[in-house]
């Protein structure tokens, strides 16, 4: 942005003598639909938490609301800051980013705070931080850099293999925490960057078929020979959605309750009579199952509204992919867009009972500082790509 502004000042334009305030703040070339979708989702999240979690923490009815509001404000500030920075710099910092990513994800094993049998987050005095959430963005930023950089080195196969290794390394670390959901996001983000990096279709076909074989091995073959790779609950969660009634009291139970919750919301929702989510039938209602809360409380109107906002968000993200001034931007935007799409689909699908329970939060809606912050930062990067693209166009136009 700085460079661009200078360039513009060097070629004084007769019609733009004053630099507007919006331009100074870096807001001028933000993608407004994207911003509005993100802000609306965050606001709706705070609103929903405010209504649905009053009784969750005894004595402090605003426990989740206040915290989520703070996370959102921090996220928005972070987004605005990133908007003003030229994302292209992250390409130069790729090795540092990648190293930071791997180290922070690994450090969880040492200093991490164990919650429900898995170490995912660092515990600080007033908050906890889950590095793998920010890792989704870091992985995209670093991997896109590696892809651009190594675009002319080695054969196509070697390159594909290299990208895969770079992406799957951190994914494996996260998987071992164990955090199956986030590691899947890492894998998908890796594939997305490769996809926009021009990896041939045939390679994807090969990767796809390998994945199918792997899944078959993990879920069917390994347990039968007595060497399970997934933890029991992970496997049960992954498979129970296929026949939830059979697991009505186990893993499928949560999902069954979530489906009942959403269904019972009907067209307009049950408001405060939303027993399913209010009375703890649906677990983790402020995090993984917040979509069920929305579905039950606000009905089809509310749930469809939220889905529409995500559709809008993804559409704008895709638009930014095509607008980007350079390939790095395209790859980064593509990676971010796909990982957002993936998270939304898997989480909402899980709430609707058509996807397995993987513990992936709903971006911007689920309660949680790390997730909210990381998502806003990712949107900030998208904004930066958009701003840079507009400035570059203007710059070219000015020439």
């Amino acid at each position, binding site marked *: 942005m700085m460079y661009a502004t200078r360039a513009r000042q060097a070629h004084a334009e007769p019609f733009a003598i004053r630099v507007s305030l919006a331009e100074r703040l870096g807001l001028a070339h933000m993608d407004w639909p994207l911003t509005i979708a993100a802000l609306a989702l965050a606001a709706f999240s705070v609103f929903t938490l405010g209504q649905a979690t009053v009784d969750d923490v005894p004595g402090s009815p605003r426990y989740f609301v206040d915290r989520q509001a703070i996370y959102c404000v921090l996220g928005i500030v972070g987004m605005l800051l990133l908007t003003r920075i030229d994302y292209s710099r992250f390409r130069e910092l790729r090795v540092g980013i990648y190293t930071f990513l791997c180290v922070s994800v690994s450090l969880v094993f040492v200093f991490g705070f164990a919650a429900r049998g898995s170490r995912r987050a660092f515990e600080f005095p007033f908050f906890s931080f889950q590095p793998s959430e920010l890792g989704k963005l870091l992985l995209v930023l670093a991997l896109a850099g590696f892809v651009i950089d190594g675009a002319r080195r080695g054969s196509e196969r070697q390159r594909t293999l290299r990208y895969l290794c770079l992406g799957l390394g951190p994914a494996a670390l996260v998987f071992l925490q164990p955090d199956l959901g986030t590691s899947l996001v890492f894998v998908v983000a890796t594939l997305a960057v490769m996809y926009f990096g021009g990896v041939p279709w045939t390679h994807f076909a090969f990767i796809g078929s390998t994945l199918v074989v792997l899944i078959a091995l993990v879920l069917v073959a390994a347990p039968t020979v007595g060497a399970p790779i997934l933890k029991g609950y992970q496997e049960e969660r992954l498979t129970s959605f296929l026949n939830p009634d059979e697991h009505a009291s186990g893993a499928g139970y949560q999902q069954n309750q979530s*489906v009942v919750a959403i269904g019972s919301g*009907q067209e307009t929702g049950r408001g405060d009579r939303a027993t*399913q989510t209010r009375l*703890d039938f649906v677990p983790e209602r402020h995090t993984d199952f917040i979509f069920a809360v929305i579905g039950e409380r606000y009905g*089809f109107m509310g749930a469809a509204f939220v889905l529409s906002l995500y559709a809008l968000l993804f559409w704008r993200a*895709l638009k930014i992919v*095509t607008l*980007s001034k350079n390939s790095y931007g395209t790859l980064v935007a593509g990676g971010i867009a796909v990982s957002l799409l993936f998270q939304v689909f898997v989480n909402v699908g899980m709430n609707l009972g058509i996807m397995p329970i993987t513990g992936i939060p709903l971006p911007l809606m689920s309660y949680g500082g790390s997730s909210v912050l990381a998502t806003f930062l990712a949107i900030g990067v998208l904004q930066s790509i958009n701003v840079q693209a507009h400035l570059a166009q203007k710059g070219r136009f000015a020439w």
Partner: protein
Amino acid sequence: MYLRSGDRPAASPRIALRTAVLGGVAVALFAVLFFRLWNLQVLSGDEYLAEAKNNRTREFKVIAPRGDILDREGNVLVDNRTSLALQLNMQKLAADPVEQRAELARIGDLADMSLRKVRRTIRESEEVAAGAPVTLRKDVDYDLVYYLEENQRQFPGISVQRVFVRAYPNETRAAHVVGSVGEVSEEELKEPRYEHLEPGDEVGKGGVEYTYDRYLRGEPGLTKIQVNALGQPTPGGQLVSEPPVPGDNLKLTIDPDVQSAGESALASRGLPGAFVTMNVHDGQILGMGSSPTFDPSVFTRPMTQAQVNALYRDPVSAPLTNRATESYYPTGSTFKIITALAALEGGVITPSTSIFDAGSLTVGTQSFQNAGGASYGPLTLVPALEVSSDVFFYELGWKMWDSGELQRWAAKLGIGKESGLDLPGETEGLVPSRRWRNQLYKEGETDRPWSAGDNIQLATGQGDLQTNPLQLAIAYAALGNDGAIVTPHVGMEVEDAAGRVLKEFDPKPRRRFHIDPAHGAAIMEGLHQAAQGPQGTSYGIFGGFPVEVAGKTGTAQRPPHADQSWYAVLAPYPDPRIVTVVTMEEGGFGAESAAPAALQILEAYFDKHASSVSASGTGLAE
């Protein structure tokens, strides 16, 4: 810097293609989500709403232990023990009737009950509280519990619940006073005192368990457990847990030594009867017992038919009846103090008025004899009481036959009146009067109107008089406390678990009346002579008792039964602190069975209080 090596013009055809493909995928994915959402909420919303409404939290009550009942010295009369109860949750049984029958049969084998009995228990329980777990058997032993845990699958819906059961460490001790507990009945639930109770709750069914139920009961706790649509508790789904508040302890006025002496005195003679010992000044009941008695613990487990018969179907022994308060008899000569008081206060006689006892009194065609055919010659009040001359009192009864004075004084002294005792089951009794008999005569219930003979009978505590040991004790107490009709009570204090007193019971006297001190003293002297004078009717019993007392024998005629033995005694004389009344059905003369029993009770009391008696100077004899 601006155009770097990696930079290329945006949106190359390849990127555009790949973006378009991704866009297509995204459209498809969002379409799937929207379609699913539409399907769930709009197309099948009704079903899910019904399911959600069916999806309830189930509330489980956590029973609060009832408070302990203690005697005045803090010894436990009633406390609790925990017991294991076998409960059946009907919802978990198979829906198919054949399968359900097999399950119930298995469960019956387990609980040692026939299939019919299991079904009956379920039906009875469903009538009271449909849907609640059915308690099949209480007091199951641990072997059964272990077996159940190992074979849980065979017994769907069976669970073991820890319940509190009343425990009676002294078995029959003060059984009629403490009473028993049982499940609240449907009728009781409609009463305001059981307002917040639910079917299945235990409440006091008699004795202080009933009267002081609200202190003893405590507050049940609540555990809310979320259940799924099948009614099964979900793992980790305990939502709210309010701990139960245990009931407060109740301390009674019962003195352990007096109580046990009274009970053993009754038991040793094996006759139906009762005793009551009361503080004459404040109405505290130090001891109260009735024979035959019962062990309240029979109500804590299922009763056999034999037990049911013994408790409920035997009108003669009627062990559940508290004969001290719920049975009504004529009192024989113990009533004479009332006749004496009425005559003195009514101005019929003075303490020095002499009446000639010729052995019988003839009024019209009726002749009234002294007991045992004795004749004592000229008598004033004191010797008349000492020897228990009937003729002396027949005279008084005859003189007052038309005035209603005797009935008025009987009423003043609480005879034929509810006493206000804090135990259920009391009724008034009867003091026969002109109005009463004439009313009966008018209704054709009897063959004659009121006559002098009725009053003559009443003057010696015979005939139609219906009163109980407690009323007599209150009347005697009034003599010893200058005319206060105390409110008898067995409840002394309510204490919390830590022993802090939350409430004290000290009911005021119900009424007071004036007794001329000279009259009171004359009657007291007469009673003292009767007990400890050489001519006294109970001299043989109390003559050697170291504490001076004032006591009167009574022998009530209850045809077709044999005579009923009575003894009423105030002690120490002349400033009594306690009154004891004993009666024994078919016990013969007062001195024969009731007086020795009263002596046993007084011995127990004064063994403990001897020092205070001598210190106060109220007089140890000799």
